[in-house]
């Protein structure tokens, strides 16, 4: 009897593993195909449709494809390297900005008492339901017209001119100060997040008030309490939000798409898309580029997995 039960358990376990493995293969297969295409010699890309095995296992490994992505795009406003730098700048600054502004606002909503606080918070939540396009249209118009308006308001500054910086003996175009094709347009409108405010508020609410009361008696001001008590206690929530925001912004597409026209100001997703426009059949290079784009996300995800899982549950707890 005991053996039979054990056998049954083993059979069930094996079946589970088989099922899990099958699903895993389904999830991984596209990535394997991406990897294999990205290292194939150009001639092989279109020469393997007679066998899936041949399609998935490259005959030779051409790592130089990755270098070629860099070279082939260089004429496009600095190319892949420049897009990578742009993506890093935008994602990092937006993430830092979102986490900082969200933390401040969340603290206010969680602890400060001011008239209309709860109504305002409801308003915040309500905006999460509004389609992006609703706010994007006026924001686009603002960014498009802002240089004209500023030129009337402050005519001493040349708002339209594209700026240039010199670094290590080379010059780089960094676009105008504000308006289309500027870092300002890519970064600032994306820096305020209702979601982050909501998530951190939920977390701050769960911190017991005793500590703060003790600190108040010791004569601590609000900002000191915030900086020395609340923030250190919230490290897990802050880490989660940081990872979430970074992931969300690394591949952000819609807003940069309407903000940027020049190649040199593109972020990676936009750059890859215009690369595809020029090299539409060079799938080896396109896959190499795509892989380089998603690699940081995979790394960040694997390192930050713990926070990721807890963050998803934190964000959904409102029910």
């Amino acid at each position, binding site marked *: 009897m005991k053996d039979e039960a054990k056998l049954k358990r083993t059979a069930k376990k094996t079946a589970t593993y088989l099922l899990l493995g099958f699903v895993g293969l389904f999830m991984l297969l596209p990535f394997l*195909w991406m990897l294999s295409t990205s290292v194939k010699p150009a001639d092989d890309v279109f020469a393997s449709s007679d066998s899936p095995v041949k399609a998935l296992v490259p005959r030779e490994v051409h790592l130089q494809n990755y270098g070629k992505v860099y070279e082939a795009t260089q004429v496009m406003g600095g190319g892949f390297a420049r897009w990578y730098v742009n993506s890093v700048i935008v994602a990092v600054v937006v993430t830092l900005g979102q986490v900082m502004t969200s933390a401040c606002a969340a603290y206010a909503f969680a602890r400060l008492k001011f008239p209309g606080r709860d109504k305002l918070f409801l308003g915040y939540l309500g905006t999460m339901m509004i389609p992006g396009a*609703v706010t994007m249209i006026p924001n*686009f118009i603002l960014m498009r017209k802002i240089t004209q308006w500023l030129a009337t308001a402050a005519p001493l500054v040349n708002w339209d001119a594209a700026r240039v910086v010199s670094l290590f003996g080379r010059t780089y175009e960094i676009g105008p100060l504000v308006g289309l094709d500027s870092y300002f347009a890519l970064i600032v409108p994306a820096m305020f997040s209702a979601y982050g405010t909501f998530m951190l508020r939920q977390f701050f609410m769960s911190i017991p008030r005793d500590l703060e009361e003790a600190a108040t008696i010791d004569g601590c001001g609000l900002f000191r309490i915030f900086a020395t008590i609340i923030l250190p206690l919230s490290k897990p929530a802050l880490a989660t939000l940081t990872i979430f925001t970074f992931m969300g912004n690394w591949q952000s597409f819609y807003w940069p798409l309407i903000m940027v026209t020049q190649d040199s100001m593109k972020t990676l997703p936009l750059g890859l898309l215009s690369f595809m426009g020029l090299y539409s059949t060079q799938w080896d290079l396109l896959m190499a580029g795509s892989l380089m784009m998603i690699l940081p996300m995979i790394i960040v995800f694997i390192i930050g997995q713990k926070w990721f899982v807890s963050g998803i549950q934190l964000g959904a707890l409102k029910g």
Partner: protein
Amino acid sequence: MPNLLGFLAFTLIPVLASLGLSFFAWDLFTPPKFMGLHNFAALLKDHEFWYYAFNTLFLMLGIPVNILGSLLLAIVMNQKLRGIVVFRTIYFMPSIVAGVGTYLLWRWLYNPDYGLINTIITNWFPGWLNNWIRNLVGEWPPTWLTSITWAKPALMFMTFWTVVGGYNMILYLAALQGVSPELYEAADIDGASARQKFWAITWPLVSPTTFFILTMSLIGGLQGGFEQAFVMTRGGPAGATTTISYYIYNQAFAWNHMGYAAAMAWALFAAVFGVTLVNWRLGGRIVHY
């Protein structure tokens, strides 16, 4: 409070501005012209708009399948097994990297002549199966993204791959871990089958999670479909993959019809709002807390 100022400047004011804008016609070059409710009336008569609304709803038909898939996957994962974290990581990967990179990847997977999917279908599917499907649906293996019939299913299948092991599965896992094992033990003693246990215990107890996921998926689905269509099909063939959000993009940022686009964005908002309200109403009755 810088967040509040930013929120006002880039969210609240734009929301009001686009509401105002929806009563005007404006191409950004000539001064805006007041049109009253004309934009909304035009929307009702715009055949393209209704076709794209149909497309959007059609693509949303995948939502129940995705949700069910996530739940089943979570049930299988909800066991004490070695290496389960590795599987979770792999399943989660597609939803993490979803974006232009994976859209390009799927565009290549769906390539009619050299893509992996058709390579597998022609070489590994048995001949009788391919013939049978061909008799049934006509075009097989299909040209996927360039076929009016297959472009939408292709996108839905890609979405399934993207989301099935992602956030929703993690939410279900958390919900399942909250279900007391005693309930299952009691059911075992009563001799309940696996199916009975699922419908009598698991399904009702995870219903708040299902409700949350469904609500979010509907909201997302109504607003979705722009990025993938922009990267993979440009909304084609013949508009078959253009969704409302893509149409808004075209009206606003390709054709400079700011007022009309704003009106459409507000109509979309109304739809999202309506769905959410109905959901909350019904949810109170169906969900077991």
